[in-house]
């Protein structure tokens, strides 16, 4: 089954599409595919995402959403097709299934490590501001091993946003987030318009009207 791809506003043929056309291309993929050993997890996907767009990737479990995002992040390479991402990995923010944090370290220490690796100017201020915004400031000196899933997800979001990425890849960002966390995330997504975002979710209604494009992956 070939995944369908449509751009909101396309049928209207209106001004919105024109705007997208003029934007610089952020992601360009043709016939993208990936298999693990003999198992194909993603087949023949075409995607174009312009800078500043928000692409929502939907599909049932096992349709390859996670694989697509890992491909876009450069964590894995495609086994078929071509893929171009306009920014290098220093400008990509990635939120995966795992929080990618050290359990033995505190939120401050975790973010400080990443802050150093990403060479963020005024690291402390940025980290403090993010922890404050995501309601983790009180817990900043506790080991993350004791955190709940929801708190880990918030901290992982801080990690992904830390270096103010130009391309933000979010894999099931709403999982384990409570109403407050969801609110914060939606607030963040509505905020910077120059940032390109790709969200994979099986709960598209959570995003409301924000997405500017959709990609529906079918079962492979």
């Amino acid at each position, binding site marked *: 089954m070939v995944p369908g791809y449509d751009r909101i506003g396309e049928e209207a043929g209106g001004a919105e599409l024109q705007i997208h056309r003029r934007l610089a291309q952020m992601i360009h993929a043709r016939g993208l595919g990936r*298999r*693990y*050993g003999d198992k194909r997890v993603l087949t023949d996907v075409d995607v174009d995402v312009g800078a500043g767009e928000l692409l929502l990737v939907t599909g049932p479990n096992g349709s390859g959403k996670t694989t697509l995002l890992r491909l876009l992040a450069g964590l894995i390479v495609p086994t078929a097709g071509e893929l171009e991402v306009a920014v290098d990995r220093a400008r990509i923010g990635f939120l995966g299934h795992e929080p990618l944090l050290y359990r033995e370290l505190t939120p401050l220490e975790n973010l400080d490590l990443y802050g150093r690796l990403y060479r963020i100017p005024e690291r402390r201020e940025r980290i403090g501001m993010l922890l404050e915004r995501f309601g983790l400031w009180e817990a900043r000196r506790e080991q993350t091993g004791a955190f709940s899933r929801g708190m880990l997800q918030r901290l992982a979001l801080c990690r992904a946003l830390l270096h103010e990425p130009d391309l933000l890849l979010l894999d099931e960002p709403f999982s384990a987030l409570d109403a407050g966390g969801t609110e914060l995330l939606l607030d963040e997504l509505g905020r910077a318009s120059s940032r390109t975002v790709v969200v994979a979710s099986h709960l598209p209604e959570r995003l409301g009207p924000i997405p500017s494009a959709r990609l529906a992956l079918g079962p492979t």
Partner: protein
Amino acid sequence: MLLVTGLGLALLWAPEDADQGPSQRIFYIHVPVALTAYACFGWAAWKAFRLLWKGDERADLESYTAVHIGVIFGLLTLVTGSIWAKVSWGVWWTWSERQLVLFLILFLFYSAYFMLRYSTEPGPRRARTSAVYALFGAVLLPVSFLAIRLADQLLHPAPLFNRDGPQMSASMFISFCVCLAAMLTLAGALYLIELTGKRVDARLRELRELLA
């Protein structure tokens, strides 16, 4: 493959050896087999290097096949060396024969290569990981050689160079060269057969997948 019969000829023609008697004849098999194994490991490392440097994906199977053949010849070296030791010194194994010890280390090393390959998911990453390990093998070879020398000196001090240059007669040398050529050809033929087999296998899997 015809050269393999040449090997038999060389064996029958050459037996004009000096003091060691017929046991010396195994030398014509043992040493060429060992040199061929080195050549295979060297080839594997070269292909591994090509894979890492140029991203040549076909080099993965080539390097793997070369290791495969190299291990077979390495095992053969151990067996013939063991027979030689039995005939010459009356024991199946002697630690004083450096080449044999080196082959034991290499055998262990390249067996681990297979373990590594079998327990990693197929894909570009396995290709590169195997390539790195094969490359390590090529570096380990001279380092181990040096290590064995150093260990020998520590355990039973002896002059460093106890074997000086070729003291073979012309006919012996010619037989030796023919044997070496035969072994290299045999290894090359096996390599090509095995490589074709592995390629066909990989192609088949791809086709089956396309059909599925």
